[in-house]
């Protein structure tokens, strides 16, 4: 619950500086929702695929 506030501000701030908000996804899955987990992963994969590879703030090792 407290974590919710933490992530709400984090996501908003990441979006503000220019890192796409969709790269950080927050959700709830309970222990009895195996199916929902599969749905979440499917959805998240699609969302991130649409954004393309990450390039912002990524450290390239020389």
């Amino acid at each position, binding site marked *: 619950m*407290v*974590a919710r506030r*933490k*992530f709400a501000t*984090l996501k908003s701030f*990441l979006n503000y500086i220019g*890192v796409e908000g*969709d*790269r*950080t*996804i*927050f*959700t*709830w*899955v*309970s*222990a*009895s*929702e*195996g*199916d*929902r*987990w*599969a749905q*979440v*992963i*499917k959805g*998240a*994969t699609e*969302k*991130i*695929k649409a*954004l*393309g*590879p*990450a390039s*912002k*703030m*990524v*450290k390239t090792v020389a």
Partner: protein
Amino acid sequence: MAENLANKEWEPKFVAIVCNWCTYAGADLAGISRIQYPTNVRIIRVPCTGRINPFYIVKALQSGADGVLVSG
């Protein structure tokens, strides 16, 4: 990422930071029930979502993750 680019289609790789008691068990259940889901995810288990330092997320992004999923 190199092996991804070599392939025909690019597949994202993302980190899922999940709570031991909720989502991790949920993911476990998905495995037990043999539900098919994409393999683009790398799971990190934490004792509680409250344990997650926002730095984990930023650090994952800096280390080249295409996305971060946080689930409680």
